[in-house]
């Protein structure tokens, strides 16, 4: 019998993935627009947790992005300039 499964932290989960991380971001967030956001849905719904809420507002990091497009769709403020990484960079799926 094994121990009961415990939930993993998101940072540990995404550690199993492979990225060729670009040196420049493919997504740019206009933080000024985030200040008045009524939902901040990106924080909960970005599957890899690229958006963090801090006391100074939203912080975005593109490195763990899986290019799903969710943030762009749920953002009510049109704060996100969203493109795909160039040169084949970004997520590299193997088993999905």
């Amino acid at each position: 019998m094994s121990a009961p499964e415990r939930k993993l932290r998101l940072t540990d989960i995404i550690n199993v993935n492979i990225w060729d991380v670009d040196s420049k971001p493919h997504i740019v967030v206009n933080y000024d627009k985030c200040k008045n956001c009524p939902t901040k849905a990106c924080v909960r719904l970005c599957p890899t947790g690229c958006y963090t809420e801090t006391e100074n507002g939203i912080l975005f990091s593109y490195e763990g992005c899986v290019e799903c497009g969710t943030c762009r769709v749920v953002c009510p403020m049109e704060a996100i300039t969203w493109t795909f990484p160039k040169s084949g960079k970004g997520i590299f799926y193997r088993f999905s």
Partner: protein
Amino acid sequence: MEGMNILDQKFDVAIVGAGPAGLSAAYYLAKKGFKTAVLERGREVGSKSIYGGRIYAAPLKEIYPNFNSIPVHRWVKRERISIMPDYESMISIDYQGKEAISFTAYLTEVVKWMGIQAESAGATIITDVPVTNFYKENNKVSGVVSGEDVLRSDVVIDAEGVNRLVLEASGIVKPLKPELVALGVKEVLKGESKQIEDAFGLSQNEGLAWVFLGAATANTPGGAFLYTNRDSVSLGVVVLLDKAIANVKDHVSQLVESLRTAPALKNYLQNLRISEYSAHLIPEDVWSLRPERLVYDGLLITGDAAGLLLNAGYTYRGVDFAAYSGYLAGKAIEQAHAKGDYSAGSLSSYESMLEESIVIKELKRFRKVHEVMKNGLLFEKYPKIMSGVMKRMFENSDGPSKAWDAINESCKENQYSMLKLLIDGYRMVRSL
């Protein structure tokens, strides 16, 4: 087009995206002698491909004569639908069929296989290059743009997937809205093939497709799924995005993690290790998401970009539909080429062939499902009613109650009429 590099090399057909739709089109066209280029943003063909986990075989058999070499993991011979009132209990319906019509696989592998078919047929696949726009001459799409480079072609197939940056850039569609799509989040959990077979009671090459409703989505309209692969399990949760904005209070990854660690699934998922975490948007309200036309002068739109994905309530069907739409786009181009005319009018045989095909027929047949899903009953009310029924039947200390009484009482408790429940049930069964 100022500051643009127009490449000397010109193709008959340029295809945006090396996914199931784009590659199936490329395969067909290259086989028919068309000089075909596929432009793919990923490093390798298949490296950006992700889906739930199951593919229906029939359309692919029609497209690919050597379908037998497709990298199948397991043929789905068992289907299970479970309603989870909470993470500890579930009510399941099992179905065991004789003939398998769908199989589990990694889309990364299947798409790679399709790429090999297309290249063997003579298509040119260019990876590492995202297409940014269409190139137009006299208002007719006459190639594709990537950065500052232009690749000219007589006709273009858009197979860019659900995030339609190119169609948006060219003004054909507007940006997606939350009510049009669902978000799927998935974990692939690895073990040994024997371990999978023992845990799920499967024989070799035999697969299970399992759907969960209720608690698995935090009662948000959507569903959760489990597919058995050769030596792994694909476990995922799908939530309608507009509902998720309001409903999902924790981080969305917690939905999959809660399911993975659910006591109800403990016996199945023990000792498997997570080997990939992925996410994707899924066309949900496909009729609203669909571009006004699927053909324009010099352009055909296929796959997810065209909203050609079926949500049957208990399963999604996207890969084979995408592939089939690409295949039909290829046929339409062949016919248009014979007429020497790539105008929208001439290409419209694509729309009519789609209309006649399994793709649109099935989409129409399931049109209502989306409405049923949206009303939320399936995800909130029914699990509670069912759970009440089961509790009365199996956990009644005075002894079991009669099924009919149990249903009746549970309906009353949940303020839902039994007649309505029966009608809903009948509708659901019919639509399944």
